[in-house]
Every structure is written in structure tokens, then in C-alpha cells.
């Protein structure tokens, strides 16, 4: 078999050297009755590359590919153009097949990359420090809530209604076990976010207010007043960024006073991939660094005085702290972090700003085109590359009807908030640099038809 370097004669020879008669001798610790003598019934045998490629290719072929249709989905996962060199570089065997950098002398490449990644994330979010990645935005969000609880020693967090419902779902699930209290709410189909409500609700028990920026409907609200209100009550502001490209154009949460900023890094370098693997971004003020979950690459000097990099503060890692660990995260999103940082390096300040401007400009055009359809209303005042429409019809069936016209026309709020009557007519549309004028034409005419 092509992946196995041992031949039958190797195996015989090795058994002999070990002094075992057969391979079964090496499984003596397994109770007789639990040992499988033959192959598991009903499972196919090994297959050639061609055959595996065909089987999986057939499954892939059943999916409607984003790049092959007018495509307007967002809500936490965005389709951006990834420069070809990103995928080339992450496939270097020395990155792809290297282990977690526990042994710094054979992992300087990974460690320096992570160090640079952290710095980029910290700067992008306007924070002092960032870690070397989390699983994704949703789990990073819960880790931030939990970290805020540890810092403030309080157990109640207030979640903005503009927070991605899956993120709310993860937090709610975890809180149900940890005994944290969460205040949550369903968003309204209106131009204003719930900032005022949040500010009102903050009290002395509040560990953190959690606000998504831009939010699930694409709205953008100033975080500074919320930060101020939170800090006044001894609470923290946790900001969540699901579209980091936005920060090329609008202020960072850190600038506006957020204490912890987490996000989903999928937009840069990673791609859609049906939802995973993605990469969670996590940054905070330096004073909180010892409460921060996950790994941290730091600079040091080696035996000869040369600069080198190591995992620092790994006292916090579970393999040392065990039951007192701040988090159980171990394997995280190394290669996705690499993809993110390569893409960010290719962009640089200049490229990121231009990318963000282009996204916004195209979204503005798109919003105006679509809002001109009779009966369709633009909900947002402000937005980055994503906005919400109120349709004259239910959005969920409209989305399916657009699929029949070959258009992937956004995310219906009905999918995200099933059974919430007021949101049924909401349709969230993302317009990135990958959208062409023809795509907008196709969406416009499909939407016009299904809104009739």
C-alpha cells in the first residue's frame, strides 16, 4: 500500500528481532474477546488514488461552487480573493507537516511566523498583545467571555443582539455548564444597533459586554460609549470582529476602548471551506496577558546570543497547569494562522486599505441597486461590505428560488433565527471584491423576480 514503507519481508524480519511469533503477540494486552480477528465487516478495502479522487470528486461535484455563481453570502464567512502565493507557501512541507513548536530549535520558522502573526493581529485590533490563534471566532468569543469573568470575578455577561447567533449559541451552551449568566437578545430589523440598551443594562455584576463590529446585520456602531459605560461599572468590553478586512477602513475596537478583541480570521488567506478550518483571533491589553488563553510565541536569544523565538508564558498551557489551566486549547489553527499572516503581509497597510475601500465601494453600489427594487428596503444606515434588506416576501424561500435561477443570493435571517417572525423578511447580502458587475446584475434580476 502506497503510504506504508514496510514490506512483508521487513515485517517478518522485525518480528523476529523483537522475538514475537506474529503481530498478534504484540496485542496480548488486549483482552481476547475485544480483539478483532479479521477485518471489520462491510467496509471496503484499500483503493487507488484514481478511485479515491473519483469518489470524492463525485461528492464535490454535487455542490454549487461559490466561484461559479453570482455569490453574496457572508454572516461570519466571507469570500475574498486569495493570492496564489498563499496556498503555495502554506504547502511547503516544512510548514505543512511540522509539529507543534514545542522544540524551538527545530521550529524557528513556525515560531517566527506566529510571532509576526500575533503582531499583525494586535495592531489590526488596536491591542497590545495577541495570541497564536484559537479554533475560530465563535470559540474565541466564549474564551473572551470566560477570560473577562476571571479578570472581573463576575459571572454575568451581556451579549449584544448584533452578535452572530452561532457565537451566541456557543456561549450559551458553555455558560449553561459553567454557571455563567448571559443576557442575550434577538436583533431588530432596524438601522440602529442595541448600543443604548446595552449601556443601560450594564451593572456592577456585569463581567463584560460583548459587541460585534460590524454586527450580524452589517451595522457599524461606535464602541467608545459602550466601553466607557462598561469601564465605569468595572466591566470589560469584548469586541468581536467577524470581518477583519473591515478594519482597513474603520477604526479598530482597541482604539475605541475595547479590552479584549476577538475575531474570525477566515477572511484573509483561509477561504470558505464550508465553515472550517478557520482561525480564531484573540488580542487584549497587555495587563490581561496572563489570563489570555492559548499559545504565545515570544522573542528570546539563543545560546550564542542570536535572536530566536519560543512559546512563552506556557505556564498557562494546560500541559503545565492541568486542572488550573485557563483554557484547554491545545492544537489550534497553526496553518490557517500562517495563511492569514502571509495574506496580510502581501496586502500590507496599503493593500488592506485598498481592499477594504474596494469592498465598501462595491457594497455601496450593490445596496443602491437592490434597494431600488420595488418593495425592497435597505435596513442599514452604515455598513462595511455587508448589509441587510427587508424584502416584501419571506427571505428563506426567496433564497431557494434564487438558487433555482443560479444565484447564491445572500443569507436569510430565517436560516439564522428560525421561527423569529419579525426577522423572516430579512436578507443579509455581502459584496466583496470578488463580485463582478455581472454578478450584481444577476442578483438584481433574480431578486426582482422572486420579490414579485
Amino acid at each position, binding site marked *: 500500500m502506497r503510504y506504508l514503507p514496510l514490506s512483508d519481508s521487513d515485517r517478518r524480519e522485525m518480528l523476529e528481532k*523483537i522475538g514475537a511469533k506474529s503481530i498478534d503477540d504484540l496485542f496480548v494486552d488486549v*483482552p481476547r474477546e475485544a480483539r478483532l480477528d479479521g477485518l471489520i465487516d462491510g467496509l471496503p478495502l484499500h483503493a487507488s488514488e484514481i478511485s479515491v479522487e473519483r469518489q470524492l470528486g463525485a*461528492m464535490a461535484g454535487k455542490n454549487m461552487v461559490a466561484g461559479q455563481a453570482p455569490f453574496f453570502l457572508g454572516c*461570519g464567512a466571507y469570500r475574498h480573493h486569495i493570492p496564489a502565493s498563499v496556498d503555495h507557501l502554506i504547502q511547503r512541507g516544512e510548514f505543512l507537516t511540522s509539529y507543534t513548536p*514545542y522544540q524551538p530549535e527545530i521550529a524557528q520558522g513556525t515560531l517566527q511566523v506566529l510571532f509576526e502573526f500575533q503582531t499583525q493581529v494586535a495592531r489590526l485590533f488596536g491591542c497590545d498583545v495577541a495570541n497564536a490563534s484559537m479554533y475560530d471566532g465563535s470559540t474565541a468569543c466564549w474564551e473572551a467571555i470566560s477570560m473577562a469573568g476571571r479578570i472581573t470575578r463576575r459571572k454575568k455577561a451581556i451579549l449584544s443582539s448584533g452578535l452572530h447567533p452561532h457565537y451566541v449559541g456557543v456561549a450559551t451552551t458553555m455558560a449553561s455548564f459553567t454557571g455563567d449568566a448571559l443576557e442575550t437578545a434577538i436583533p431588530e430589523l432596524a438601522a440602529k444597533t442595541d448600543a443604548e440598551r446595552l449601556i443601560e443594562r450594564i451593572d456592577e455584576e456585569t463581567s463584560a459586554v460583548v459587541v460585534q463590529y460590524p454586527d450580524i446585520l452589517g451595522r457599524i456602531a461606535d464602541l467608545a460609549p459602550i466601553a466607557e459605560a462598561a469601564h465605569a461599572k468595572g466591566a470589560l468590553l469584548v469586541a468581536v470582529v467577524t470581518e477583519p478586512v473591515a478594519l482597513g477602513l474603520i477604526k479598530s475596537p482597541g482604539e475605541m476602548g475595547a479590552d479584549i478583541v476577538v475575531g474570525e480570521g477566515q477572511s484573509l488567506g483561509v477561504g470558505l471551506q464550508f465553515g472550517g478550518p478557520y482561525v480564531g483571533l484573540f488580542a487584549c491589553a497587555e495587563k490581561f496577558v496572563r489570563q489570555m488563553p492559548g499559545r504565545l510565541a515570544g*522573542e528570546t536569544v539563543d545560546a550564542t546570543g542570536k535572536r530566536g523565538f519560543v512559546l512563552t508564558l506556557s505556564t498557562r498551557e494546560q500541559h503545565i497547569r492541568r486542572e488550573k489551566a485557563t483554557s484547554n486549547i491545545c492544537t489550534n489553527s497553526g496553518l490557517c494562522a500562517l495563511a492569514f499572516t502571509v495574506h496580510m503581509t502581501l496586502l*500590507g497597510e496599503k493593500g488592506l486599505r485598498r481592499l477594504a475601500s474596494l469592498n465598501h465601494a462595491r457594497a455601496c453600489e450593490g445596496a443602491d441597486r437592490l434597494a431600488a427594487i420595488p418593495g425592497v428596503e435597505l435596513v442599514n444606515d452604515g455598513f462595511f461590505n455587508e448589509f441587510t434588506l427587508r424584502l416584501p416576501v419571506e427571505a428563506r424561500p426567496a433564497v431557494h428560488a434564487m438558487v433555482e435561477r443560479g444565484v447564491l443570493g445572500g443569507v436569510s435571517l430565517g436560516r439564522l433565527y428560525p421561527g423569529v417572525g419579525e426577522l423572516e423578511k430579512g436578507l443579509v447580502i455581502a459584496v466583496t471584491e470578488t463580485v463582478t458587475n455581472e454578478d450584481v446584475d444577476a442578483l438584481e434580476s433574480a431578486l426582482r423576480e422572486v420579490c414579485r
Partner: protein
Amino acid sequence: MTVNPSGWRPTASGASAAGGETVTGNRALMLEEPLLFERGRLDQTGVDIAEAKVTGARLGGLERSRDIGLPGLSEPEAVRHYTRLSRQNYAIDLGLFPLGSCTMKHNPRLNEKVARMPGFADIHPLQPQETVEGAIEVIHSLAQWLIDLTGMHSVAMSPKAGAHGELCGLLCIRSALQDRGDPRAVVLVPQSAHGTNPATAAFAGYRVESIPANKAGRVDLDALKARLGPDVAAVMITNPNTCGLFEPDMKEISDAVHEAGGLVYCDGANFNAIVGRVRPGDLGIDAMHINLHKTFSTPHGGGGPGAGPVVLSEALTPFAPLPFASKMADGSYRLVEEENAGEMHPKAFGRMTAFHGQMGMFTRALAYILSHGADGLRQVAEDAVLNANYVLRQLEDVLDAPFAKSGPCMHE
């Protein structure tokens, strides 16, 4: 401009790099490559994007005014920077990886190719389900394989790594105990367990106590039995364990735990060594995570991404988190999500992550599994055990493997 202060310099020079012999034989680090922040410039870019006019009218007055501080590189500079950095790593592609409690194995390039098929790589998690049936089919097919290979009842596919899988398993256990009105406070974990085990138990709200080991490097069955009682929610056992040994009393342990009203979590990080030879389902296990980035060969990538599906016993199945893939009566594939869970899966303990799990790992793992088939996977386990015992034998003169005489080792 200063770089991320997360990189402060420890006062002592050398840190871990300076201690003793290194694998490469180098004591100093090899090639030095400047930091991106020493090389790049704010006005340099490796991506051509036309300047777009932005009025700012629709940005709620929040336009950025300050520089972010992100230097860029042209494409040739970027390619060189990362190519040079890569060469400072050791990796499986360069040679054997004799490290740690993880099963590092060859990462077939076919898997990389498959994962990049546009039908998998370029689909959005919230696309209407009728447009992603093939993707849901992948999840379902892989799930079926995992169930068959472990002899368990179901599998939760969404956890994002081994530790996340542990969490998933313990939350299933907690939900099951809550559901039967018998919440318990303690989880027992052997001293030798991987750090994530106690950390996870703590993260899930349990108190952690140690299970002592016997002289043979296994769980001390009697001591364990003595400790079991109405406060013990679960025991977490790693099998094969982190010393590379199979727990011969696994079934007895499970029975004892069940008798005492607890449940059994198995850390399956080393499942690689027994796949196709032993089914955890035959050992009384209630939940076990499988690291797809170990046993099923998705690349380690310098620390992830991975995936940690958790196979579950019948007792725990009703509590598995959302979403999961399901084959409908009409042969189509659909997700069970919040909206249809009420009807199809009412006791789900909730959701562990946005979207549906690590698709990119699922495609790779399924390609790996289909490539090997039932016969190949069994052979992998046999070869792993054979290699480990062979190396152990070869090293016997040189090193002192504490448990070398106490039974064959499984993988390391």
C-alpha cells in the same frame, strides 16, 4: 515602531533552545531571517488593487484616521521571507518525527488535492442545503466510518481538535447525568494523562482527582474501584495510554465505573495503534475523541488545524451537540441544526462552534480512510505497533524504558 510586546525577552538567555543536545546538532539557530517588521514597509504591497473612492458617508463616522502599522512585502519578497523561514523548521517531510504523545504520520498529497477541490474548498457554510449535499455527504460518510471503526453508536463531528472533543464528550456526560437527575462533581484522571484531560474537566466545571498508576504503568484497578462512588461523574482514560501501553483492564474499568453510576471517557489520541484491531465500543467506553490530525493524517501544520470528532455510546447519543449530518429517508443529506433539532434531536446539549465543523479535515480524513480501506487501516495499526516495539527493542541497550518489560507498547 515596536513589535507585539507578547515577545518580550526573558531575562535568562537561551530559554529552552539552549539546553543540552538538539536534534539537528546545532546549538545556535541557523539562518537568520529579519522580522517582517524589519523588512516590510507600509507603502509596499504584493497585491494590486485599484484605489476605490470611498465617501465615508456610510461608515457611521468611524473611518480610520491612524495608521494600522502593517508593513507589506511585494510577492517576491514575501515568497522569500516565508520560504526561508520554512527552512528553519524540521518536519515529517524531512524525516522521522520521534516526538511526543502524538501520532505524526505521512500526510498524503492526494488529501491536499482533494481538500482543494472547489466543490469542497469554495462553498459557504450557510449556502442553502440543497446546494451543498455533497459536502454533507462527506461528513456523513466519514461519520459512518468512524462509527464502524470504533463500534460505537454515533459520533459528534463538530469539535475542532482533540481537546475540543474531550470537552464535547464531558459535556455529553454532564448532560446525561443532569438528565437523569444525578449531577456529580468529580472526574478521575490518571496522573500520566495529557494535560488537556484535567484542563478540559475543569473547563467543563468538574473537580479533578488523580487515579494512581500501578507499577506496570497502567491504571491501578483496585485503587480506582476504591475511589468510585456517587460523586464520580466520569473517569478519563487514555488508551493506548501516553506511555504507549494498552490498558488491559479497560473492560473491567468500564464495568466498574458503570456499576458506580459513572461514565467512561476515553482519550483516543492514540487510536492509531489499535484501529481495525480493537473497537472501543467493545470495551464499554461511552465517549472517545479521535484526533483526525493524528489517526487520520490531516497535516499537523505546525500546530493545527485539527479536528476532534467524538464517538458516543447509545447512552450519550441523545445529548450530542448540534449540528450534525443526517441522511434523510429520501436519500438526500441534510444538517440537523437548531431549527429542526426540536423534532429530530431534542436533548442536544447545544452548539460547540459556529457552522458545522472542520470540513477541510473531513475531506482529508475521508480520502485517507478510503485510500487505506479496512485492510489498510488495520495494517497501519499493526505497522505502528511493530515499529514501536522494534525501536524499543533496538534502544533497550541504550536507554532505560521504564515499562519496557511490562508488555508490548502500542505506538511509542
